[in-house]
């Protein structure tokens, strides 16, 4: 019987792993969606849907990890491998700025030979030339930097922060259970390593996001376990700004499974919204789901449309190519009855006071007006203080 679990959700009480699994397995799509929608309305009473203007920059596709689900990487020595030059990087940044971009998502493969100084210099170069937020290096990259440099994760993070790192993207989480990771990404950061990077980063005042890539070899229980690991860490640190889930895209990869469906996406999104009661924001993945399902997702737990993705390479390599301009995103959001608002990485609305882009205060008046749960307000205050600290000196 799921009705006691439904009452728990309605009463704002936390679900156990067993509750969550039972609800996920038994509840009809619309019941799950309704509950997720109620949670979303509780956390975001104003009908606002946010998005960020940014681009993905993949500094290299050369990777020693060789994950089975990846269609993007090149093994070292492969002729199609690349490392972006300073010139290419600068052009991409200029274009991003000219399109109103406030941040870049900077990620790449685990390159066998590049030293830690390469990444530090890349950040310093960007920060010296552009006022832009650097959302960079997912946990597997940080773990990799730690291995190649012989420094601890904390020491690596401290050095990168000093060079200009502003926040960390939640990529490389895939499914946070080691049974799954051994099968699909045996050479990548383990579950504990991934979580440790995030905990350390949060401790140093960095905000991060969290992701899940589902729909390959994992069991439903493992999806729930993944959510619970994230929720536990968030209880300790409050450092996650958002959760983003997307399905595995099987084309051009070494895994032979059927592409995940629209219903599966909405169900996963909904249960995530219900379980992750301490995550302020959930993004809709229009890049993998297309604009129609992403719009529907706004009623199944999502309150954010993610990024305009001026450039996206990784999903495109797996044969999925949806493109949306900022104007199109705004139209889709408006069409669903919400007010579209540009935001920054920390979800401050552009045009409201406190909005800072790459150390520069954005123009605009008004108050930070998001009224959210107690825990979150605390988290936000903490974040602001730490964010400022991290901008000053390390």
């Amino acid at each position, binding site marked *: 019987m799921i009705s006691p679990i439904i009452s728990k959700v309605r009463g704002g009480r936390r679900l156990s792993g067993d509750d969550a699994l039972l609800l996920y397995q038994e509840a009809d799509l619309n019941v799950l969606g*309704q509950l997720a*929608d109620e949670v979303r309305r509780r956390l975001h009473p104003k009908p606002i849907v946010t998005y960020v203007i940014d681009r993905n920059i993949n500094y290299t596709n050369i990777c020693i990890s060789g994950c089975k689900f990846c269609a993007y990487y090149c093994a070292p020595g492969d002729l199609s491998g690349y490392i972006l030059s300073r010139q290419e990087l600068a052009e991409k940044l200029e274009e991003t700025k000219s399109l109103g971009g406030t941040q870049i998502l900077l990620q790449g493969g685990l390159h066998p030979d590049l030293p830690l100084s390469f990444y530090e210099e890349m950040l310093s170069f960007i920060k010296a030339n552009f006022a832009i937020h650097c959302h960079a290096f997912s946990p597997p990259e940080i773990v990799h930097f730690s291995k190649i440099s012989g420094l601890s994760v904390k020491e690596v993070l401290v050095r990168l922060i000093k060079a200009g790192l502003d926040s960390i993207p939640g990529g490389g989480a895939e499914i946070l259970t080691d049974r799954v990771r051994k099968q699909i990404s045996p050479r990548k950061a383990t579950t504990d390593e991934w979580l440790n990077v995030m905990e350390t980063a949060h401790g140093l005042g960095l905000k991060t996001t969290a992701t899940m890539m589902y729909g390959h070899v994992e069991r439903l229980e493992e999806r729930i376990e993944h959510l619970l690991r994230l929720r536990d860490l968030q209880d300790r640190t409050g450092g996650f700004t958002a959760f983003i889930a997307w399905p595995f895209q099987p084309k051009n990869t070494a895994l032979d499974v059927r592409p995940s469906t*629209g219903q599966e996406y909405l169900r996963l999104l909904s249960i995530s919204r219900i379980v992750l009661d301490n995550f302020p924001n959930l993004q809709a993945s229009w890049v993998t789901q297309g604009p129609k399902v*992403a719009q*529907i997702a706004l009623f199944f737990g999502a309150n954010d449309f993610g990024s305009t993705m001026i450039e996206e390479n990784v999903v495109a390599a797996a044969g999925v190519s949806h493109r949306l301009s900022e104007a199109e995103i705004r139209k889709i959001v408006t069409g669903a009855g919400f007010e579209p608002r540009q935001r920054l990485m920390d979800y401050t609305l552009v045009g409201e006071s406190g909005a800072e882009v790459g150390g520069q205060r954005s123009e605009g008046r008004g108050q930070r007006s998001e009224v959210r749960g107690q825990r979150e307000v605390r988290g936000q205050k903490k974040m602001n203080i730490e964010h400022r600290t991290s901008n000053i000196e390390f």
Partner: protein
Amino acid sequence: MEKVFKEAGLFEIYEKVLSDTRLSAEDGELLFSTTHLPALGYLANIVRERLNGNRAYYIYNQHINYSNICINLCKFCAFGKKKTHPKAYEMSIEEIVSKIRERHAEPVTEVHIVGGLHPDLPYQYYIDMLRAVKAERPEIHIQAFTCVEIAHLAAISGRSITETLEDLMQVGLGSIPGGGAEVFSTRIREKLCPKKLSGKDWLEVAKTAHRAGLRTNATMLYGHIETISERIEHLLALREAQDETGGFLCYIPLAFHPKNTKLEYLSSTGGVDDLKSIAVSRLLLDNFPHIKAYWVMLGPKVAQIALSFGADDLDGTVLEEKITHMAGADTSQAMTRSEIEHLIRQAGREPVERDTLYEPV
């Protein structure tokens, strides 16, 4: 759920749905305007499961568009061409027969034949076409010629609608597809398709077909310049006609695709509007046995979601295996039987391959 519907302002409708009471135009307006999408889906799903249980239908069919030459040239249409247009075409009877023959090894149960309103193909062409298809593949069900084409055939032959239908039935016509309904409103038709059969006459042809013993489908082309009230008027006109004859099998909301039309400046429909169009039609059309989410137009993801928003049918255009697919067929044009069944099962439904009349194959 009671509390949910109270908060969403849909409690009266919820009670009506539970007691199987007919909904009003005002109810339809309220449902279209709701911001509680899962609640709307929940309501539509009650009716869907009452009428069709857990089944989700698909059909193994073949489409033939015999000509794109059309004297109507509606503004929302990217298919119709003037006879002098370089891309204008018409198929000979032999070409049509060879298309049927090409797929002889596949278990196709229905051939779906529609085309433009050709200015000078003779009445005999249509009679010969159906006779030849039937001769080539006698067991196949022919669903052909929208109400708009039937009226055109009657006009060029000088015969009545009933006589025209009888002529066509004699040579193999099995049922009539739902196209050409667009939006019945005269305001919309004057603006977008002034030369087309009026809404009233479309309904008259459909009802005449029902009386002649044919089952037909109905559609609405939504998402261009029509208002919500015009959508609801359209649905209620269909419901009224169905009360009279009971001949409609299925209603199919068709999302407008602006590309290459004279209305290219408009946006494509949003996923939310697509789901609302399915759900509200399921709720208002209480006397229609089936609601179709035509996956070719909605995309497989939205069509699958629609199976929880009132739809019980995904249509077809299925391929038996991947060979043709690999040979360059556009993925968005065809799914294999196992792909479509996977989609249905992933939605928690039971896939049922049907024939045209919704009998399991």
